[in-house]
């Protein structure tokens, strides 16, 4: 994944973890948490910079709505800041805040009355940036662009067809690359439950995306 660096984003990219690699070192998080507890807001700001991209991804793939994602993400970090005194360090800060984010997202989805809406107009960086897509010239070919947009729409619809529990494991494992063991800690379920939910979810998704699986 290529991240464009600019004057404004330099600080963000310094802390942005690669999607496919491990999370940041726990020692640095422990130091930041300790300082944030002592009232140093700048320390918590660094944690926000570190984890907002990954948490954004989790919330967005669960809600498929950018406006809801933005509001929910603000609430997640606000709650995490208020709850810092309750972080005992038994897990990494990453796991802890991820669990907070997941629970709040679940609560939000349950309360949401309307069906999740996905806005194609608000997609700034789509799957046409995937290496395979770029090689095939999808990014520059207008004729194929509509196919990509259709695929993106179908992917979101397929994800929304899953229950929250199944959507969560697909988001964490397939999209964000989080290991089964970590997912089980975040969701507070056994690894076996994680694996069975993934299996079931994949079966469901195959039904929705059959037309794209051969291409």
């Amino acid at each position, binding site marked *: 994944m290529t991240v464009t660096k600019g004057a404004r984003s330099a600080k963000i990219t310094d802390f942005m973890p690669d999607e496919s690699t491990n999370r940041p070192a726990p020692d640095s998080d422990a130091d930041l948490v300790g300082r944030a507890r002592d009232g140093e807001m700048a320390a918590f700001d660094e944690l*926000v910079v570190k984890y907002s991209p990954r948490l954004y991804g989790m919330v967005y793939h669960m809600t498929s709505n950018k406006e809801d994602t933005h509001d929910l993400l603000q609430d997640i970090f*606000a709650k995490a800041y208020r709850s810092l005194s309750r972080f005992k360090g038994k897990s990494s800060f990453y796991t802890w805040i991820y669990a907070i984010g997941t629970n709040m997202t679940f609560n939000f989805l349950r309360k949401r009355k309307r069906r999740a809406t996905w806005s194609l107009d608000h997609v700034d960086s789509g799957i046409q940036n995937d290496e395979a897509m770029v090689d095939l010239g999808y990014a520059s070919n207008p004729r194929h662009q509509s196919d990509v947009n259709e695929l993106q729409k179908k992917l979101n619809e397929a994800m929304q067809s899953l229950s929250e529990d199944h959507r969560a494991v697909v988001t964490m494992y397939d999209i964000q690359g989080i290991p089964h063991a970590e997912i089980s800690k975040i969701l507070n379920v056994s690894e076996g439950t994680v694996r069975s939910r993934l299996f079931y979810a994949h079966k469901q998704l195959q039904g929705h995306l059959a037309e794209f699986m051969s291409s």
Partner: protein
Amino acid sequence: MTEEEKIQRLIRLKRHEKPREGYFEDFLEEFQSRHEQESGSAKSGAKTWSLAGWFRGKGTSGWVLGSGLAYAALVILILWWPKGPESGTDQSRQPVIYEPKPEQGPKNPPPEVPPSGKEF
């Protein structure tokens, strides 16, 4: 490639769905601004916020303690609540306390009985 692998490959395409450039810088600024606003409004109710924060920090025991204190406050309130607007000020509503009047000369003294006991 198995069906499972195909579907995983499709889903992984969603990794590239990202917000616009500069979104996370703006996000941090908004978070900082929101925190400053909340801190400012919290100052006016600092005592209440601190109390709430203290209870939150206690976890489950905080809920138990808080419930107990709330119940005690309610009981005290009920016991000390005035009975009505008339209570306490209107003397005519005060309970009547019988006080025997000091002895006075009777208005209609009984007829004197001659000491001899003779009849009229």
